[in-house]
């Protein structure tokens, strides 16, 4: 006869231990495989896009524009100030990240 106490005792028995038998190793191999595939995709995809796009870029126009603008940019106080702020922000961000990682 099954009463509530017997049923509880049966249900409370922990699940049978499942031996690993290479499960974890296979899974980690799959993760590593996927990650290396992703790394390769991240590396090659921009290169492929660039290779396809470069023939369509008006290189001469871009060079002319840079040559035309560079003297003005180099002598601009506002640009120098913006660059300094950007550099400070990046180093502060980096320092905060490192501190968070150490904690």
């Amino acid at each position: 006869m099954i009463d509530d106490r017997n049923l509880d005792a049966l249900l409370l028995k922990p699940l049978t231990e499942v031996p690993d038998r290479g499960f974890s190793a296979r899974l980690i191999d799959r993760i590593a495989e996927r990650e290396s595939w992703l790394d390769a995709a991240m590396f090659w995809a921009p290169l492929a896009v660039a290779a396809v796009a470069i023939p369509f870029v008006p290189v001469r126009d871009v060079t002319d524009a840079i040559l035309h603008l560079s003297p003005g940019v180099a002598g601009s106080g506002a640009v120098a100030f913006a660059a300094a702020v950007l550099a400070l922000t990046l180093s502060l961000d980096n320092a905060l990240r490192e501190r968070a990682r150490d904690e």
Partner: protein
Amino acid sequence: MDRDRELAKLAASGDTDAFASLVRLHQSKLRGFLRRLTRGDAALADDLAQDAFLLAHRKIRQFRGEGTFSSWLLGIGWSCFLMERRKRKEEALETLPEQGDASLASEVGTRVDLERAMARLMPEERAALTLCYALGHSHGEAAEILSMPLGTVKSHVARGREKLKAMLEAME
């Protein structure tokens, strides 16, 4: 557990060894839970466990450590089970013949009867009973893992218990 949180944090920063440790620590629990959900189909349960771990690896940054890692992982396992059930269009996991779990063959008596009776319950009842009894979670934790309202989990537990009792009595 603090160790799990620490490992999850390391895994989130890209440490594959830390994630491997989490897999080794939790594989038995997750695979055991999924075996019960799939009514002892070890191959299907392992496929689902693999999917769950892969998903966990992809989403590890979303684990904020509010609950335990184990609960979070079981929740992902339950979602993978539900997706598989939907994929099989309910054909399925409920009507498939029971698989003889080799690990049960060596066990005797009531334990085997319990597994047989469990296999006839609805998956939601099996999941709720397994979480609340064999895996020792509270009703609240089970509700979070299964993404169900607390009241629904309580009724699955109560209904499952009643059904089990009747089936086990009939088996005697």
